[in-house]
């Protein structure tokens, strides 16, 4: 079996004295789409932030392409090929849409993604390229945030709650683009509140409950009851 792209080995995470993650172990294969679900406070965002390097971890707790990266700072993690679409979009307000995308390309990693390709994926952005990032609608801002992350040509894309605050039709539209992203060679980890959407988009699902992995499996194989039990911890 080929080596996994990303391997989490007993990953812990702390906010000062408070422990948010307890020994998370997970594997992501190249080109795979995995959904991480769980109730609020389960640790989903913490998980992504740890992988992205925004929070410190043991070096070998996070292994990417066979290399331990747990203790690398966030900017170095991007250089390795992992990009995060942060929760709440968090575009740069002083920059235009195009400038936001260009920031993502700061590191000049080789790969298929560039301005042209991103505009092909999200034509709405091309029309608004010179507008201030905050002048866009929620859905368009989410596109811009995803595009910004793609510009660094990541091998692994981390999406933190891209459905947050968006109308269902917009969310469906966003998820419809996911296959194009995967086709270009990225694996994707989506953190989602919307379980239905998560199960549709991802091949595998991981459910977190109070900082621990409560359930993993193929989305097609898991029953409603199993997921519900893992989600709420009953």
């Amino acid at each position, binding site marked *: 079996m080929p080596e996994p792209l990303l391997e989490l080995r007993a990953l812990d995470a702390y906010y000062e004295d408070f422990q948010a993650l307890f020994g998370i172990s997970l594997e992501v294969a190249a080109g795979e789409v995995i959904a991480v679900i769980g109730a609020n406070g389960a640790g989903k965002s913490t998980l992504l932030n740890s992988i992205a390097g925004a929070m410190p971890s043991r070096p070998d707790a996070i292994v990417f392409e066979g290399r331990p990266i747990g203790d690398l700072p966030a*900017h170095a993690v991007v*250089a390795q090929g992992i990009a995060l679409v942060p929760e709440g979009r968090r575009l*740069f*307000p002083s*920059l235009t849409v195009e400038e936001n995308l260009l920031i993502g390309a*700061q590191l000049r990693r080789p790969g298929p993604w560039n301005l042209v390709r991103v505009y092909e994926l999200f034509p709405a952005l091309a029309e608004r390229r010179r507008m201030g990032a905050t002048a866009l609608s929620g859905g368009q801002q989410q596109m811009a945030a995803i595009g910004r992350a793609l510009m660094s040509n990541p091998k692994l894309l981390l999406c933190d709650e891209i459905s947050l605050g968006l109308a269902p039709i917009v969310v469906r539209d966003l998820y419809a683009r996911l296959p194009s992203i995967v086709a270009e060679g990225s694996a994707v980890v989506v953190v989602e509140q919307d379980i239905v959407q998560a199960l549709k988009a991802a091949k595998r699902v991981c459910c977190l409950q109070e900082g621990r992995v409560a359930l993993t499996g193929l989305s097609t194989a898991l029953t409603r009851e199993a997921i519900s039990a893992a989600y709420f911890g009953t």
Partner: protein
Amino acid sequence: MQWLNVIIQGVLVGGLYAVFAAGLALIFGVMRLVNIAHGDLIVLAAYLALVATETLGINPLTAILVVVPVMGAVGYGLQRGLLNRTLGDDLLPPLLVTFGLSIIIQNGLLELFTADSRRLAAGAIEVESFPLIEGISIGVLPLLQFAAAVTVIGGLQVLFYRTALGRAFRATSDDPAVAQLMGLDNRHVFALAMAISLCVVAVAGVLLAIRTNFDPAIGPARLIFGFEAVIIGGLGSMWGTFAGGIILGVAQAIGAQINPGWQVLAGHIAFLIILALRPEGLFPKVQG
């Protein structure tokens, strides 16, 4: 007619104040740091220019080519080695550390150069002037300095809005945490910002050295003029800062015309009036 002359002189000096202010505003914009040693660094640059002209035997205007890269390197090292450690939510550490730095630079210069007043001789160009209109002539040197000020401000504007580095500055200023997540190394970005700020300081220092007598103690006054120009102009806009400098220069010139002892005081009063009536400044940039 005399008043027109006064205003013109004020405008020309105002350009220099704008350069003092630009370095300050840049740093505050990118990393919310106010460098209390800013004025003393301008004086340091002036002394560097002095040393450069005396040891290398070059013209002061050529000395700019030496002083700018040296100060830029100093800025990078200072930020990376010392000031990066003070950044954070607490405002005391950067303020106190830069205050300590101010004292160190002032007294260090005092030890090295004594309190004697010095000046850079720029040669014949110092006294040349040409008539503008009937009864008013403009010194060539002040005009050159004003042109330099415009160039510096314009250059910074281009840097900030048309280059990748400027993009990095603006992004890091907006959201340092997300900037890191996009691959920007904050330590490096901040250090580059300080390096550029000190390059601007270097230009300011050389212009100052040619224009007036300087000694180790005049740093704080330059900091204050720069600061007043920033507040008068309003935060967030380079050209606003430029306008602030001009207004300050004109206020001082008018004050000096009424009574020579009132020059600096007039500037302070103009600053306090703006603060009272329009605290956001005259040309603030509204954040989108």
